[in-house]
């Protein structure tokens, strides 16, 4: 099914079938992320309060809310990047399918993290060539075959529409790309380890309108195959691409629902105010 999708996606490349790395097995049915009674404290402050949330598969879920409300922390909790914060305390569970992300062993964690890609706020090209940036994740997870790696790199650079722009300079440092290109490279890097979920933390906020539009369009195309969770500041963006919207205020989920529903007919007073711009 995945290959079919990819073929459809890459019309120009359809005569060259892409084989998914055998390393990474995919579940037949897309898994959902379930967050249950999740609380997060840093020192004495209660950052995330009693979060209960189901993030549907193959949809774009936008997390919106005023700055400092815990959007990014929630996102980072999903793939446990919050672990490195000093004096952090967490209760509750986050499930991906049947695996508990909060209470898993470290060896399960590296596998689960692979299944959840992250596109950061500012592009973070690793200090290596364009080629190695995309191949990095695969190499870490034990893919050694050079041809396989090459093919993966080319494939995912095509997916993010970067191939034609960089095919002649795959060996040059990734930091020389423009910032919009870098962000797409980061996306390609995340996709290369075949994740199921993509977490995007204000992935377009550092980009110019044109690049940000390109990335947005990519997300919309990718949701056929991946589940995307986005944190965004721009309501307009959420309006454009979100299927589901989660509104967070002061570390609490205020409202969840279909995007249209929430935007057109917010149930909660706070949501209404936020959408009208009275709280920001």
């Amino acid at each position, binding site marked *: 099914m995945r290959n079919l999708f990819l073929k459809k996606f890459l019309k120009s490349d359809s005569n060259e079938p892409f084989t998914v790395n055998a390393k990474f097995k995919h579940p037949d049915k897309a898994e959902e992320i379930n967050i249950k009674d999740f609380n997060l404290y840093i020192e004495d402050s209660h950052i995330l309060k009693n979060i209960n949330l189901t993030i549907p598969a193959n949809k774009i879920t936008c997390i919106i809310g005023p700055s400092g409300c815990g959007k990014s922390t929630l996102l980072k909790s999903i793939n446990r990047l919050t672990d490195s914060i000093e004096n952090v305390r967490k209760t509750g569970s986050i499930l991906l399918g049947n695996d508990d992300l909060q209470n898993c*062993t*470290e*060896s*399960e964690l*590296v*596998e689960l993290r692979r299944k959840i890609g992250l596109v950061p706020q500012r592009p973070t090209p690793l200090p290596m060539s364009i080629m190695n940036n995309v191949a990095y994740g695969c190499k870490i997870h*034990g893919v050694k075959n050079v041809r396989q790696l090459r093919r993966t790199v080319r494939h995912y650079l095509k997916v993010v529409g970067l191939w034609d722009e960089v095919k002649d300079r795959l060996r040059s440092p990734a930091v020389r790309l423009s910032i919009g290109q870098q962000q797409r490279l980061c996306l390609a890097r995340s996709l290369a380890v075949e994740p199921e979920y993509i977490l995007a933390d204000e992935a377009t906020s550092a980009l110019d309108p044109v690049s940000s539009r390109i990335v947005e369009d990519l997300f919309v195309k990718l949701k056929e195959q991946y589940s995307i969770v986005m944190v965004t500041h721009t309501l307009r963006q959420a309006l454009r691409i979100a299927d589901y919207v989660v509104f967070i205020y002061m570390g609490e989920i205020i409202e969840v629902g279909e995007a249209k529903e929430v935007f057109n007919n917010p149930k909660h007073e706070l949501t209404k105010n936020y959408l009208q711009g009275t709280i920001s």
Partner: protein
Amino acid sequence: MSNQFRIIKDKTANGVMSAITIVSLVFVIIMGIGLYIKSIPILEEHSLWELVSSSSWQPFKNDFGFLPFVMGTIWVTMIAIIIALPLSLMTAIFLTEYARKSVKKFVYPALDILASLPSVIYGVWGTIVIVPLISDKIAPWFSSEFSTGYTVLAAGLVLSLMLLPILVSLFVELFVCVPDDLRAAAYSLGATKWQTAKNVVVKKSLPGIFASVVLAISKALGETIAVLMVCGCMPEVPKGLLDACYPLPALIANNYGEMLSLPLYESALMFAALLLFVVVIIFNLTSRIILKRIEKNN
């Protein structure tokens, strides 16, 4: 390669690394204790205050007064910092705020050279250039007495030159880290380049500047060979810039050969080492604490 194996490797690395780190930490403590044990004999014989405040140094008559050496160290360090600090600040500001690329291309290698030269070379240069300069040109200006040139001033000058590249590179690193937005903000208020450098760049980096100076001082305190070669090595409290002096490290280095002749002598020199050790630690710790406080206030 299974994930399990990757995690085991990761854990092992964690263990090894933390072990190495802890061992290096314990080393500080061992060193302090070791030096203290060696200084016990002399501390039993003379009180700490007696040792530090007496200025009579006659090891073979059981007279161990460290005042000349302590004062020598303080004099030389102070002179070196007084000369090096403004020079290095100005140089660093010039390099980050004013200089064009073509100028930097010449200045950085020059500083590199200064930084890379060993202290013994500074010593050689000091004895060939600075010492005669002081005895022939500078000293006659200030007093009619003859000066050998091996003086506090010579040691301070040589030392300041050694501190210069360290300070400049530390400062430049600090100044470069000041975001350009801040500079732009100052310029847009109509500040001149110098005002911006002074009020924004330097002010923003003050904690770092302070830390750099402390580092430079601790380096200056312990500098041995270069100072030893130009200081004159007279165990008397220096009264002015043109007196000879005898800093603590020079004392230790000069006498390690004969110290084994008397048990108390050895203990005295180890006490000197302990003194340096303690002073350096106090310097580092206080500076760190002050630094943290300044950081918090910002």
